[in-house]
């Protein structure tokens, strides 16, 4: 009795059933394809053209030029003019505009004394000179929007008075590595590979054992000499290839459509991906041995999927989370793969230098297989 033959029999049967299930088969290709296009184009943290309003108390030519100068940055678009403050606040509350610029009546006096304009060199202690030119009222509930408006705080106003720029030496020199143009999509595409793999791999296998039970095949299967570990390995084998196919679709299209670079070695990428796929598949198997129905297995998949999206560093930096959340994130395979794939694809890191993440994925796979095999009883009670 050869265990490899039995594993092969289970894997071949899974592939056949998968081939017959046209819907699922289509999803293997369509999920990464559509989600990549959707999120690749949609997700952008570089905010542009925020709708804003203005309350102009000065009614001067200067205030109109000021508004034009700010519009030229493309960060905001002035869509409304308000005559008074309460009206403007109402518009912010109803999300008609995200911020309102209040131009005071004495804007020209403030402007000529502003240090950024560089008229003479007034002392910093002079209260008159340190007054800002105008005020922004911002819907601060969205931190990304608030950040974009805050970025306007130090904007140069020299064009306003047609004077040469007052060149200041910045305190720090900042050099942006790996993504100098600061395109969000560069960070999103490799991360998306991790998220989509988490979703499809866990989803496929979490239904694997439950489906046999629901369709009544389990009673036959457990009277055969197949061992639990053989059943588990046979169930995940076909999906390893499917996972690899999905990563190829995401990174390939990311390169072609969004110009996301593939800096690292493909072999190293394949190794890291393989480990992550097996880790996700065994997580699905564990779910499958717990769930009593396919509906339950779906619910548990989502229970794992959400933290994998939100805590793994896909959307928000890992370092910004409190310690407890970081521990949870460390347990999730997606967090480790997020670091690995971004490292290899964007920064050409050798995976040997990220051995910790690799070890965790390997450990997770072995532990998961053991747990699933032990939990799976060849009995009905």
């Amino acid at each position, binding site marked *: *009795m050869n265990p490899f033959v039995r594993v092969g*029999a289970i894997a071949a049967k899974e592939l056949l059933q998968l081939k*017959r299930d046209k819907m699922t088969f289509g999803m293997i290709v369509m999920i990464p394809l559509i989600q990549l296009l959707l999120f690749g184009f949609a997700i952008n943290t570089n905010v542009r053209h925020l709708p804003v309003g203005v309350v102009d108390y000065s009614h001067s030519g200067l205030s109109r030029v000021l508004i034009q100068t700010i519009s030229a940055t493309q960060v905001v678009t002035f869509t409304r003019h308000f005559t008074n403050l309460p009206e403007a606040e109402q518009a912010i509350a109803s999300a008609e505009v995200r911020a309102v610029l209040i131009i005071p009546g004495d804007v020209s006096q403030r402007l000529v004394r502003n240090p950024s304009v560089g008229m003479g060199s007034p002392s910093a202690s002079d209260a008159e000179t340190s007054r800002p030119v105008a005020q922004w009222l911002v819907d601060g509930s969205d931190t990304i929007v608030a950040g974009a408006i805050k970025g306007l705080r130090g904007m140069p106003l020299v064009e306003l008075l047609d004077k040469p720029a007052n060149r200041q030496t910045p305190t720090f020199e900042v050099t942006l590595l790996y993504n100098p143009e600061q395109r969000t999509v560069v960070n999103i595409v490799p991360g998306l590979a991790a998220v989509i793999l988490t979703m499809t791999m866990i989803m496929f296998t979490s239904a694997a054992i439950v489906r046999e039970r629901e369709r009544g095949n389990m009673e036959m299967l457990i*009277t*055969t000499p197949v061992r639990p570990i053989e059943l588990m390995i046979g169930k995940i084998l076909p999906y390893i290839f499917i996972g690899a196919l999905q990563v190829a679709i995401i990174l390939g299209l990311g390169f072609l459509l969004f110009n996301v670079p593939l800096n690292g070695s493909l072999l190293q990428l394949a190794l890291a991906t393989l480990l992550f796929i097996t880790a996700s598949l065994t997580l699905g198997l564990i779910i499958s041995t717990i769930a009593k129905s396919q509906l339950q297995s779906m619910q548990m998949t989502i229970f794992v999927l959400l933290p994998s999206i939100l805590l793994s560093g896909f959307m928000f930096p890992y370092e910004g989370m409190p310690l407890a959340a970081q521990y949870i994130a460390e347990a999730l395979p997606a967090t480790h793969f997020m670091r690995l794939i971004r490292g290899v694809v964007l920064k050409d890191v050798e995976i040997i230098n990220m051995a910790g993440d690799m070890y965790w994925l390997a450990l997770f796979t072995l532990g998961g297989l053991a747990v699933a095999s032990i939990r799976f009883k060849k009995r009905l009670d």
Partner: protein
Amino acid sequence: MTSPSASYAIRAEKLSRRFGDTLAVQDLDLEVETGRIYGFLGPNGCGKTTTIRMLTGLLQPSAGRVEVLGFNLPDDAEKLRLHIGYMTQKFSLYDDLTIEENLRFIARIYGLNARAQKQRIEELLSIYGLQAKAKQFAGSMSGGQRQRLSLAAATLHKPKLLFLDEPTSAVDPENRREFWEQLFDLSDQGTSILVSTHYMDEAERCHKLAILENGIKRADGSPDELMQQMGSSVVEISSSELRSLKQILIALPEIISAAQLGARLRVLVKDSVGDPVGFLSQQPSVKPEDQLNRVRPSLEDVFVTCTGVRADSGEQP
């Protein structure tokens, strides 16, 4: 296997199984001889499936001792699996695989090499008349075809002992007859068979059978033995007013049951009544012109005497 149990395929002592508060099987003693067809007869929910699951190692007994093919259960369940075949009550092969694919899957699980697989599958397809349907999906087949496929799959590895849980419940009478011919062929080749059923005509074909009710064995033996040792006599009454007569007779403590068969009433009278025909003709409700005949008991009569209910009157599970 040199133990004295070698001539028995199955031996169970005081086998019990509890689900929560209900006893599904209670103190069941069982001896199934090698090479025989042994029947479990009983209404749905009487513990037939639970017993079969315990005997195949799928359920752990709450109490009792089981020895199947010389293996002690539940400890040796894994070793036993190579030697038994199990045809489940519900179709348990894959609907989305063809007949051939289903059989090939089972053949590979049991470790047959490529040549043996091909040969055995062709053999089974011809025995069970499935060659023409080999490429058809199992899900699209008729009840009779599915049942033959299930039997082919259960016997693919040539098991010494075959468990069949209500194998003919979704099959028409003609297919049932054919199916039993195939069972006798298997038995002739030395396979021991345990089959559960709620059909009397099927039970009558078994070499030996046990009548189960509410998880308790009420009687066992060969169909002839059971009929001889029934403990009641059967009298058929031809009368004009059978419905009212039945109501009156059934109320008597000496009468076990009365069932109408066309123009006759089949009455089971306890053996404590010495002369059943005389006893019945003295009843005021039986008119002098009515005809009373003592007849040979059937298995159905045995069943009714043992359990007080008809086998096919049980609730669906």
